[in-house]
């Protein structure tokens, strides 16, 4: 289990770290939309190259991305199994008994795997290079125009930032509880079905208890310091878009346009 990296901020000194969070969030959204266009392998190769460039610029190590990707592998294996049973198109590859494997099963899974990898690369780059606090400010600013139609943008931003803030804590907490229960003989990997259920229960209950406890503590701490949602408040940090932020946006927009063009052509 150890060392889950998903959603964790990595304090490094890189041009991506210095960028305006609004530009990074917008850039990420553009890229995520781009991924969903069926632009074919060439398109994905281009997106992959772009995402890889961002990761290199951000000074993140490939193992870091790999670790974030790892939990998804189980899902992909599951998907491959489902696909082999239900996707019977394309060319038959081989037959075992009455069961035939078709090429589309492999291609479909690979297709989703590539998209998933791209998504993980892009979102991880954002969360790893943006402090949770900056993320909130960025989200809040981006949502502000929707305030006129009654969107509680400040609350949404606060919600997201608290969630992001607590992911690593909850992961640490989970690992601590796993250790504590393993000390009491809980075996998460083996055992009969009823034992497994008990094992899972012995993790989930304390995790919920501590999550609620944390939520309550945080709420009290915020209230004690005078936090009231909806109140007008000043900012300690003022965001400012610079040249590199505009470049990022232009590049991302260009990529999206490229993907749209590629998918229309095919």
């Amino acid at each position, binding site marked *: 289990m150890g060392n889950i990296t998903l959603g964790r901020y990595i304090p490094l000194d890189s041009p991506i770290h210095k960028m305006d969070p609004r530009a990074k969030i917008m850039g990420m959204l553009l890229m995520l939309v781009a991924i969903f266009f069926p632009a074919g392998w060439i398109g994905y190769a281009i997106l992959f190259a772009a995402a890889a460039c961002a990761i290199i610029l951000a000074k993140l190590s490939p193992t870091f991305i790999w670790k974030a990707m790892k939990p998804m592998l189980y899902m992909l294996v599951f998907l491959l199994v489902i696909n082999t049973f239900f996707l019977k198109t394309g060319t038959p590859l081989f037959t075992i008994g009455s069961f035939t494997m078709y090429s589309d099963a492999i291609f479909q899974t690979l297709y989703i795997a590539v998209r998933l990898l791209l998504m993980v690369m892009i979102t991880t780059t954002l969360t790893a290079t943006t402090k949770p606090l900056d993320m909130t400010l960025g989200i809040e600013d981006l949502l502000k125009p929707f305030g006129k139609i009654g969107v509680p943008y400040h609350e949404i931003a606060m919600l997201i930032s608290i969630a992001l803030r607590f992911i690593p804590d909850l992961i640490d907490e989970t690992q601590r509880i796993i250790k504590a229960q393993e000390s*009491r*003989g809980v075996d998460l990997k083996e055992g009969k079905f009823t034992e497994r259920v*008990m094992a899972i229960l012995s993790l989930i209950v304390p995790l919920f208890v501590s999550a609620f406890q944390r939520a309550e503590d945080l709420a009290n701490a915020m209230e004690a310091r005078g936090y009231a949602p909806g109140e007008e408040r000043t900012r300690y940090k003022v965001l400012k878009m610079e040249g590199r932020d505009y470049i990022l946006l232009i590049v991302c927009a260009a990529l999206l346009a490229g993907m749209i063009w590629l998918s229309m052509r095919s």
Partner: protein
Amino acid sequence: MPIRFEHVSHTYSAGTPYEYKALKDVNLEIEEGKITAVIGMTGSGKSTLVQHLNALLLPEEGKIEILDRTITAGEKPKNLKSLRGDVGLVFQFPEYQLFEETVIKDVAFGPKNFGVPESEAVERAKKALAMVGLEPDKFERSPLELSGGQKRRVAIAGILAMDPKVLVLDEPTAGLDPLGTVSMMSLFSKLNREMHKTILIVTHDMEQVFKYCDRVVVVENGSIRAHMSVAHFFSDSSFCKEMNILPPSLIRMKDLLREAGFEIDDRIHDIDGLASSVARQVKQHG
């Protein structure tokens, strides 16, 4: 057979920017049948050290010998479950591990995992709860309704009910009331004396080390700074000064009396002995 650490090191989050070397080349031999205190500043690596004892953390380098088993770096430990049954580890803040509907069920959870039949597990749970001093009227309550100190007792009972040969306690009395602390420490001392359990206690409380422990291990910055008998460690305050530790009040008292010109024997280790020695000298010079 003693518990032996040979060139053990451990790195957290290896290969990430959060990488942290928490143990560095630890060599240590812990005698069986004794109470050993593990002391050191916050973040020095005490919890990391003791979590190696039941293979919750595995050494990155080196090896650990414990109860006829060897845990070697880079190898998957064998018979993990039986090791965890023999080495009971009570975590720092163990109250967060409670999950069952009732206190008694939660305490019986450990022994049941190690194959003790239900009825015997419940018996053991009752005994363990009595040992830690929880009132019987709370046995059927939900553990989540208890106070922090009561939860702590239940969590400790949960490990005691497993009847381990080696008992490892990570700050078991942090946050308990003074009386609760004394009764808890007396319990560990009794388990050691009467049932010959090997006990390791991580603590910040020098009074506890002085009063209840036989040996002391000082961890500093991931390394073992000192390992000696408690009597030797507290024979005067020089070791404490060297390691930036506030000595127990009796030792400080002895220092003050020495400064004031009294002859104080190093072997005096309780307040009564000290008082009578002082009284004698006062009378003599009276």
